[in-house]
């Protein structure tokens, strides 16, 4: 999908289920063109047809698909899935939606991940709902590349998608702060250990909380591995018009500022393009 072909569409809820305490997965109908979305791109969702909440909420694309029509002569229906954490008003309303309810969606937006060399080992690093775009990415990568995924979180409940990754035949490495799942500690420590063999050509793809991204970027730098990170920011427009979502680029100084729009220039950036605060 070319950038010029972003869409605004009405979408119907197919299902909307809790997948772990505080996390839900929602499947939404989408026009056929949605198939051109790339992993790492996101959509802006309007959860209420009114002013409360007022602004759209950004969510990464977790999965795409087609489901077979109920009656023989109906056309196939494309869908997209979002995996979301309930944090506030917008996600709270999202959670209350039922099958057959409608939503207004804008997207796909932003730049996705660059897949890179097929022969590279692909290292996915994520936490919380950061797993959402990584799962979509993994599905695309797994047929051509060797993929490993590193998942971190505070406690067991925050570790999402392990089964889904395993179903793709991908090795998962899990770490939790409290040791309730996988090894105890930070997932970046597990990553560090894994990478210590040196050797292979690798690419890292990371999405998750800021500190996790920062530390992943540092590890990548250290090992000379190319690393793409998907960032988050408060957003209003999602299309580069409001300049509300910027992050500092690597050449940023007080005198010669270098601000990049997370929505339009990102949300995926090469980790070396970012000034890590």
């Amino acid at each position: 999908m070319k950038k010029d072909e972003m869409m605004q569409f009405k979408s119907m809820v197919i299902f909307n289920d809790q997948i772990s305490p505080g996390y839900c997965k929602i499947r939404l109908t989408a026009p056929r063109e949605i198939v051109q979305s790339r992993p790492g791109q996101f959509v802006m969702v309007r959860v209420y047809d009114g002013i409360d909440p007022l602004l759209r909420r950004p969510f990464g694309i977790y999965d795409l698909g087609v489901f077979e029509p109920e009656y023989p002569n109906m056309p196939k229906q494309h869908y997209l899935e979002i995996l979301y954490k309930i944090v506030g008003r917008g996600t709270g309303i999202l959670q209350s939606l039922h099958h057959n309810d409608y939503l207004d969606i804008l997207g796909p937006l932003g730049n996705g991940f660059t897949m890179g060399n097929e022969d590279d080992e692909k290292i996915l690093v994520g936490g919380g709902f950061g797993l959402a775009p990584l799962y979509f990415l993994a599905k695309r990568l797994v047929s051509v590349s060797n993929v490993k995924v590193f998942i971190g979180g505070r406690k067991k409940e925050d570790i999402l998608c392990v089964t889904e990754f395993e179903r793709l035949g991908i090795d998962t490495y899990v770490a939790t702060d409290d040791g309730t799942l996988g090894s105890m500690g930070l997932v970046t420590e597990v990553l560090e250990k894994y990478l210590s063999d040196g050797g292979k050509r690798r690419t890292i793809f990371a999405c998750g909380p800021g500190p996790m991204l920062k530390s992943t970027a540092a590890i990548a730098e250290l090992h000379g591995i190319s690393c793409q990170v998907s960032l988050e920011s408060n957003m209003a427009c999602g299309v580069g018009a409001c300049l509300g979502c910027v992050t500092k680029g690597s050449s940023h100084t007080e005198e010669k500022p270098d601000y990049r729009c997370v929505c339009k220039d990102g949300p995926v950036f090469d980790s070396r393009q970012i000034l890590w605060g």
Partner: protein
Amino acid sequence: MKKPDLTVEIAGIKMRNPVMTASGTFGYGEEYSSYLNLERLGAIVTKGLSLSPKAGNPMPRIVETPGGMLNAIGLQNVGIEAFIENKIPFLRTVDTPVIVNFFGNTEDEYAEMAERLDKIPEVSGLEMNISCPNVKQGGIAFGSKPDNAYSVVKAVRESTIKPIIVKLSPNVTDIVEMAHACAEAEADGLSLINTLTGMAIDLQKRKPVLANITGGLSGPAIKPIALRMVWQVSRAVDLPIIGIGGIGTATDALEFMLAGASAVQVGTANFISPGIAEKIVHDMERYLVENRISAVRELVGALEIQ
């Protein structure tokens, strides 16, 4: 019935309809070009420009508030040079008037900007944002004292023959007094309102949400204040008015016109529905048809007060 006449003329700028996009909410036009037909708009108002590029404020810059949003973008912009080089070429291909919103830190900067813009044929009009702090006056906004407003508008007037529209700040005791000062300085039109200064706090962090502490409130929440100011000014000052503030539907737009606005700008609503400005034009036309009104101009100031 034949198609209603949507055309308006503001400060000498002829527009096919009264619906423009508000500065800072529509980028430089191109950002939204895949969502709507820019040639269905009355005019495009650019992000506020300054002489040199401006970095803007640190993050976070935006936060939602009840029925509105606060922004503290800090007037980040590419600067006049880059605008001419990188943005004008696209805008040239669009058959819609371009109004350049601009600002300065001093009167001289305003005047210099006006002089530069005066020479760009693709620019149909100038919208002066006078809500910015006046560095020489200790940071008090040009737009909060009538004398300051008068003198900066006068300086711009002497630097351009293009239409000058002054965009007023609502953070004042008496908006009519401000409008009078601009009229005296020979502005050709007024835009109102800019954002109201507000603040949001994160209770858990015990910090302001915005890095800049305060920001500008926009969106539906401010509509009643904007309508009131448009109404007050339109009764008192003989200049065309562009109504701004929380407009998201044709009904909103037409209410501003009844209150005395000759045209309107759509701001925050663009973020919510990227095609909204075009939809407003469409719905406005339908309203006129359904109510057998032959020209939208007939509604300007048509509010009945007994």
